[in-house]
């Protein structure tokens, strides 16, 4: 097997026993990129020089016996994470030339853990999308079927792992942007509890929903990544100062006697029958593992998309006001006065989906509408969270499909924003409630597209997610396929 196809834990073994060098791993990743990147377009920017230098440095460390959790491991970063001295675009024209003078906290943590950065992964512009089609740099394609979308908004981070153009990657999840592309690309994706991983340096889309998390090739790698990413950050007011367990300890533990909540609201009409079948199969595996399935209800599920499409755009409309052409980023040429500069820079700098959401959000907060929209949505959000609080009194983990359908065709939903929004129906509630969720591959459709199962747990119970996902992964014995690129 090629090094680039390996997992972190496999490579760590090999690094430790000297059968591979960091440079060899990085080179194998870049030769894969040379072979497939043109077709997949996982990356906005490759950092080959930096990566090779970092790998060389890692090899020196290895020689000295200084081996950290990610020493020599090639990692892709969603281009929403600020990287000091390296252009960070957020998939947008308005930031096409922005070079941050600072690193995101997770970038600092990954660097300290010895990671080698491969490049900045493609994404929907400002993470607004479910298909990675809204990127100013062009769409990313699903490696399992190049005519199809990889999911979004962290599409490039998902495909880079799925197509073995890196070992693991970082994404961000505001309404499903890690779990949905993970499911559609056949990899593991985890959205941690809100406040668990620092948002400092993560370009904000919707501040009360955004959370950073990893994409990996298996569950153990997910635990390894979480060990590096999780933890309190004094630079973020909403960061939670709570103890972080060693997530790796949950790998391989059984789930005998665990109660698994099956919410009836997530098994509704309109779900692709192949998804339903795969999820029913997953439930059987979980029962074989000793899990006890219980019916639960999350009564406000049907309101999640509506709540989300008020709160996320409202916060976004304010978060994106800073892109005004004054201090950084794109400024329209030939403008004579200030108002024109603002309006033209933002017209030319933002794509259609971003503008649409800024419009919805601005409208929802504007005089006379605040109570009807923003306040109402915030109240229903409280009810949605309460649903979960009640549910977790009855079960340890909730099991749902990650997506209602496998990957759809490129262009299929671009003209119907509402249909696009509804594709996030199973992932949004997690962000609204602030709880963690993981998507794990659970099979393929007849046309060979990956399908994911989602597990949800209560706040700060990422350990439970790792435990059940790892138990499922071990017992489901999903055939390991690789996309035929």
């Amino acid at each position, binding site marked *: 097997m090629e090094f680039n196809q390996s997992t972190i834990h496999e490579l760590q073994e090999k690094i430790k026993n000297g059968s591979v060098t960091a440079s060899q791993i990085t080179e194998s990743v870049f030769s894969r990129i040379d072979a497939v990147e043109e077709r997949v377009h996982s990356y906005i920017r490759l950092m080959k020089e930096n990566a090779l230098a970092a790998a060389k440095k890692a090899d020196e460390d290895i020689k000295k016996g200084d081996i950290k959790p990610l020493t020599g491991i090639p990692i892709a970063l969603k281009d929403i994470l600020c990287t000091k001295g390296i252009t960070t675009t957020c998939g947008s024209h308005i930031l096409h*030339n*922005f*070079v941050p*003078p600072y690193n995101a906290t997770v970038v600092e943590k990954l660097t300290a853990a010895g990671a080698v950065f491969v490049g900045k992964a493609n994404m929907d512009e400002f993470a607004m999308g479910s298909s990675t089609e809204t990127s100013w740099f062009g769409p990313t394609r699903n490696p399992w079927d190049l005519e199809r979308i990889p999911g979004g908004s962290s599409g490039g981070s998902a495909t880079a792992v799925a197509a073995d153009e890196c070992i693991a990657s970082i994404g961000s999840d505001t309404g499903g942007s890690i779990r949905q592309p993970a499911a559609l690309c056949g990899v593991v994706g985890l959205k941690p509890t*809100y*406040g668990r991983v620092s948002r400092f340096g993560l370009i904000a889309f919707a501040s*009360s*929903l955004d959370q950073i998390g990893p994409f990996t090739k298996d569950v153990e790698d997910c635990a390894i990544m979480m060990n590096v990413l999780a933890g309190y950050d*004094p630079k973020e*007011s*909403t*960061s*939670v100062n709570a103890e972080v367990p060693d997530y790796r300890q949950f790998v391989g533990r059984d789930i005998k006697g665990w109660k698994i909540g099956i919410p009836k609201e997530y098994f509704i009409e309109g779900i692709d029958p192949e998804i339903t079948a795969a999820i029913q199969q997953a439930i059987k595996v979980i029962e074989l593992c000793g899990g006890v399935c219980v019916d639960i209800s999350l009564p406000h599920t*049907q*309101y999640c*998309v*509506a*709540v989300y*499409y*008020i709160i996320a755009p409202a916060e976004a*409309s304010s978060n994106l*006001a800073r892109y*005004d*052409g*004054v*201090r*950084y*980023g*794109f*400024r329209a040429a030939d403008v004579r*006065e*200030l108002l*024109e*500069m*603002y*309006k*033209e820079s*933002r*017209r030319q700098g*933002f794509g259609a989906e971003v*503008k*649409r959401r800024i*419009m*919805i959000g*601005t*409208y929802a907060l*504007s005089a006379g509408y605040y109570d009807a929209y923003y*306040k*109402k*949505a*915030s*109240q*229903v*959000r*409280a*009810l949605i*969270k309460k649903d979960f609080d009640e549910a977790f009194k009855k079960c340890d983990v909730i099991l749902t499909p990650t997506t209602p359908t496998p990957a759809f065709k490129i262009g299929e939903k671009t003209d119907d924003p*509402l249909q696009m*929004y509804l594709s996030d129906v199973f992932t949004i509630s997690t962000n609204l*409630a602030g709880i963690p969720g993981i998507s794990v591959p659970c099979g393929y459709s007849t046309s060979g597209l990956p399908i994911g199962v989602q597990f949800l747990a209560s706040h700060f119970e990422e350990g439970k997610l790792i435990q059940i996902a790892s138990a499922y992964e071990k017992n489901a014995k999903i055939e390991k396929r690789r996309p035929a690129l």
Partner: protein
Amino acid sequence: MKISTREVEYVAHLARLEITEGEKEKFTSQLNDILLYIDKLNELETQGVEPMSHAIGVTNAFREDKVIDSIGTEQSLINAPDARGEFFRVPKVID
């Protein structure tokens, strides 16, 4: 109609977005669809429900009043589309 073309114009101005006639129509129709969908929230009685603006219950996150060196004028201006001397330059505000 939930939102009129005039409201779309007003909102675009508030958000400092220049929009063409074509976009205006498209946005009006798309925003209408979305707002109609969002209307389903009105099925719910929410009187007395405390609005939730944070996903977790953190309170009192503070910093000590200790100066940390700033990044300096050069670094501050490094990304500016139009820096002049030690300033960001912008077109005049027309009153």
